[in-house]
């Protein structure tokens, strides 16, 4: 177990180094120096080279890469000259809002996916199973924004139950209390994550249902409720751990679209606005954070699966 953990963390570190090289390389290619932005289009070449030398954009590529990594490790993700603010301070005010939207949606989707998958497995090929399969298959083929637009049309424009826009507050406590504005984004994101996850839960539950220990539990006369909750559910949930760990890239992408459509003041909207300004330090900093979160998600899911499933013996 310890050897496996060390090896698993080692590959993660190699991947993280690769990510830093890739992100820095891309930043270096598309945005070699902010001098033009800072000094204006009429600045002389001499002024630009002086500015570059002063701000560390003139040395060798390796030197600049080293400075970049050093900055990132000290919590300095770069500086947005367009917004005249450090990327760290831009993220600091927003990450909780995005984490709230994505986290609640992910948690809700897992809470729904587990009983839904078990229901579909137990009532396999029934009308209910087929309806759920059809709905999730359609939602799976649907671009996120279309579901948001339909939801806005029905629940905000036709029946004025919820708002067309998410909460505009930057205070997380205010946002959490603002159910009228936050219901649509959260429910829609939950549905979209569920569409991706529920068929895995269904097939996992079907596989588990065919195991001998389920037969044994039934044969010894255990009530069906206990068979399902104590024996089926706990085993069928295991793939969900991996799935949640792998869901971070999709979560970030979904979050980006949701925040753009609902005008929600999180990291996704910041990314969208930065795309329009071509503010590459912000864009690549968020990409770096997203990639690191993805690696960590995979790592934590692997470790959690080892802890949760004693049958997995790794050397």
């Amino acid at each position: 177990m310890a050897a496996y953990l060390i090896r698993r963390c080692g590959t993660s570190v190699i991947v993280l180094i690769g990510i830093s090289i890739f992100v820095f390389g891309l930043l270096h290619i598309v945005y070699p120096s902010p001098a033009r932005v800072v000094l204006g289009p009429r600045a002389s070449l001499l002024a630009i080279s002086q500015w570059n030398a002063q701000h560390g954009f003139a040395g060798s590529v390796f030197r600049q890469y080293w400075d970049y990594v050093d900055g990132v490790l000290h919590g300095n993700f770069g500086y947005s000259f367009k917004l005249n603010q450090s990327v760290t301070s831009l993220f600091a005010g927003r990450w909780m809002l995005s984490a709230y939207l994505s986290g609640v949606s992910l948690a809700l989707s897992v809470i729904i996916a587990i009983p839904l998958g078990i229901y579909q497995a137990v009532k396999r090929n029934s009308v209910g199973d087929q309806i759920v399969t059809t709905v999730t298959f359609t939602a799976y083929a649907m671009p996120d924004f279309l579901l948001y637009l339909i939801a806005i049309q029905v629940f905000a424009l036709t029946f004025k139950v919820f708002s067309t826009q998410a909460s505009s507050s930057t205070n997380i406590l205010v946002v959490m209390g603002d159910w009228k504005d936050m219901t649509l984004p959260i429910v829609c994101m939950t549905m979209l994550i569920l569409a991706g996850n529920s068929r895995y839960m269904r097939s996992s539950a079907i596989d588990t249902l065919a195991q001998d220990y389920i037969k044994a539990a039934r044969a010894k006369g255990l009530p069906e409720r206990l068979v399902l909750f104590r024996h089926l559910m706990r085993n069928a949930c295991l793939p969900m751990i991996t799935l949640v760990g792998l869901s971070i890239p999709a979560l970030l992408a979904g979050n980006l679209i949701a925040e753009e459509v609902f005008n929600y003041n999180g990291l996704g909207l910041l990314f969208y606005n930065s795309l329009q300004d071509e503010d590459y330090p912000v864009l690549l900093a968020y990409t770096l954070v997203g990639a690191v979160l993805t690696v960590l998600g995979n790592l934590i899911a692997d470790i959690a699966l080892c802890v949760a499933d004693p049958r997995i013996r790794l050397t």
Partner: protein
Amino acid sequence: MSNTVLNTEHIPEGGAVGPLNSGWRLALREFTSNKLAVAGVAILVFFLLFSFLGPFVYHGDYLVANLSATNDPPGAGHPLGTDTEGFDVLAELMKGGQASLEIGFLSAVIAITVGALWGAISGLTGGLLDSAMMRVVDVLLSIPFLFIVLIVAVKYGATVLSLSLILGMFTWLVPARLVRGEVLTLKVRDFVLAARCAGSGRWRLINRHLLPNALSVIIVNVTFNIADAILAVSYLGFLGFGLHYPNFDWGDLVNNGTEYLSDGYWWLVYPVGFCIVATVMACNFVGDALRDALDVRLRRR
């Protein structure tokens, strides 16, 4: 087999042995017996004809603004209405469909070509090169796909070709892993050993023996890749960072229509939304059916 009643229809007449079928013929039979797969192919063919032959049959204007007929609801003259510039929505759907489908197919072909070669070389060579090539895949897979595609598209994307290249460059990773896995199981088989003994070089092994035998994995992946690429390009278009005018795809059309949803101009959003969902769903149907048909282990006996 819970059904114990013998189904006599499917038992062949005694004695007559059917003609020997090749694996592909069996797969085709399996595929065509799947109703969803046939429906998926039919939908895809419909949208191909609609987008590429439709403009020859139906002449609607999507280039010259007609300010006397803006935001007309569906009716005579304009079966799906007009948008804010007086463009005909049906004609726009056809033109946008061309771009969406072209990018979908092109980027899938790019992704599968790069991915298959990468995976085959990595799997066949093994050792240090294999580890290095797979770490590259790990690194690129960790980077959120939509983010990186948006960043590169803002800088370099504008045409069908450049967007296909960008999408293809970041979607070859999964095919590479799948083909590598397939090659790892194939390369220890006897026919590869025989080919090696007969003097086949590495390139000939990959081209003639390994890739053709990994073809089922490749074909299944192409269909899913097309679906993902059509979705991805619709995201780019919706966010406004896809094709540059006068080119546009289905996502751009949704983007144009979104702000008029509160005015009740539903025909600017839902017909094009339906096109995206139907095409992507059809690709997924075909992909699922191909996987069932080509994977011998999943085939019904």
